[in-house]
């Protein structure tokens, strides 16, 4: 998020691929908008099931992002700053969910947290807690898939941050925890914010791990991507309308957050 200098011209060799890249990303969305049967928009929005799926999507993606922040930022610090052996192995392992097909991720979650899973069977026996097919399962599936995006962003920001500020803080007598809170975290705040946005967006669009591990039931586990997929089976027009609704809500949220976030850094 560096401020563009006045009069900076885009070098010609960058211009064409940049334009192609933008077109590649934007055109499918425009295609969706062109094909949208706008007359159906009101009917779909009035459908309580759509509102329910949308609310569930927003709530679970936000919870997944919060969980990712709580667990992912410390993990990123360990990956970026710790000198412990096996760090590169750990880094490779925590990015596995990025390359794992999400459906496989869902099955993997079953094997650990399912009723027959290693941890899940113990939870069931000891506390009578079963996770699959609940909203908790949706949040877990989304966190599993989305947290690596946050970890990678924050780790990158930590590596790019000037470690001398931390050294100075230490020489001035700040403890390691204080240094992390008062120096490191503010330093990498833009990276954390960018990572959180990536994480939230990925969680919002999550489909494969969710439908596998959490199942699909309106009100408890049916998020918008699941509703879109099932609508596609019966009524492609309805599916397009639902996709556009999801798109509009996520864009609006991101723009709103971006304004607030930029406003804050501008004031600081």
């Amino acid at each position, binding site marked *: 998020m560096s401020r563009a200098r006045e009069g900076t011209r885009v070098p010609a060799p960058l211009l064409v691929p940049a334009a192609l890249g933008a077109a590649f990303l934007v055109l499918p969305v425009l295609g969706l908008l062109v094909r949208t049967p706008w007359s159906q928009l009101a009917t779909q929005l009035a459908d309580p099931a759509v509102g329910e799926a949308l609310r569930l999507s927003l709530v679970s993606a936000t919870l997944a992002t919060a969980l990712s922040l709580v667990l992912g930022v410390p993990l990123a610090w360990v990956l970026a700053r710790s000198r412990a052996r096996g760090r590169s192995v750990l880094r490779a392992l925590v*990015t596995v969910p*990025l*390359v794992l*097909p999400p459906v496989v991720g869902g*099955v993997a979650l*079953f*094997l650990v947290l*399912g*009723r*027959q899973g290693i941890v899940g069977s113990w939870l069931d026996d000891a506390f009578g807690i*079963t996770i*699959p*097919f609940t909203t908790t399962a949706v949040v877990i599936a989304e966190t599993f898939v989305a947290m690596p995006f946050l970890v*990678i962003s924050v780790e*990158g920001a930590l590596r790019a941050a000037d470690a001398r500020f931390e050294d100075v803080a230490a020489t001035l007598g700040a403890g390691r925890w204080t240094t992390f809170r008062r120096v490191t975290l503010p330093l990498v705040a833009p990276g954390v914010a960018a990572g959180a946005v990536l994480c939230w967006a990925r969680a919002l669009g999550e489909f494969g791990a969710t*439908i*596998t591990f*959490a*199942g*699909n*039931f*309106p009100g408890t*586990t*049916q998020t918008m991507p*699941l509703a879109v*997929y*099932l*609508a*596609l*089976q*019966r009524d*492609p027009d309805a599916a397009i309308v639902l996709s556009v609704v999801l798109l509009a809500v996520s864009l609006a949220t991101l723009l709103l957050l971006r304004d607030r976030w930029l406003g804050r850094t501008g004031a600081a």
Partner: protein
Amino acid sequence: MRVRALLVATVLALAGCGGSASSGGPGAPGDGGLTGTLTVFAAASLTDVFTELGGRLEDEHPRLDVRFSFAGSSALATQLTQGAPADVFASADEAQMSVVTDAGLADGEPQVFATNVLEIAVPRGNPAGITGLADFAREELALAVCAAEVPCGVAAGQVFTAAGVAARPDTLEEDVRAALTKVELGEVDAALVYASDVATAGGAVEGVTVPEAAQAVNHYPICVLADAPAPEAARAFVDLVLSDEGRAALADAGFQQP
């Protein structure tokens, strides 16, 4: 750098999910054998038996490559109306076949080659003691039923209505194999799937037959597609499915004859 490579790999992996395009030349019978690639879109419930029949066709015609895309019939019908290239479509019900025939994509009249009824699938040993449809009203059980958007869900709705059971499923699955997988993993106590799924599921799954299932018999139609890149091979496959050999394989897989 490694991060970027990972992201690129992810994008490529995601991009690879959708397509199952048929390439290769038309299945022209050169020296009597079929060549090229045959692409069959078939309902998820046909996975095992069609894979076997495809293997037999490949044995007969060593230069022929038979590829399958197995998914919920509705998803396949949508893909076909959106222009997915395929040679054969086999649907788990007539409604989804008519989506394809109404779009003018079928070459000739589809033929019904099998029927299927619903059956309850339970994990080995039937830990929850499921005896019939009435158990689907028990809230304390973890239960899977197909979503109403796919054929097995439509059939499930009819069967529950016929039996007068107010089902309380925990999940509405996107296709019948997804429901079966959850039984195999032991994550649900019961799922309402096709008899054929139970027959081919192997040792991890047991079946509980449902008398009311006769109220909702699924008819499986098959057709060659009008724009088939390999029409000769497509007809050969459809003929094999409709032959005595095909019928025997379908019967072994738990299907009934129309």
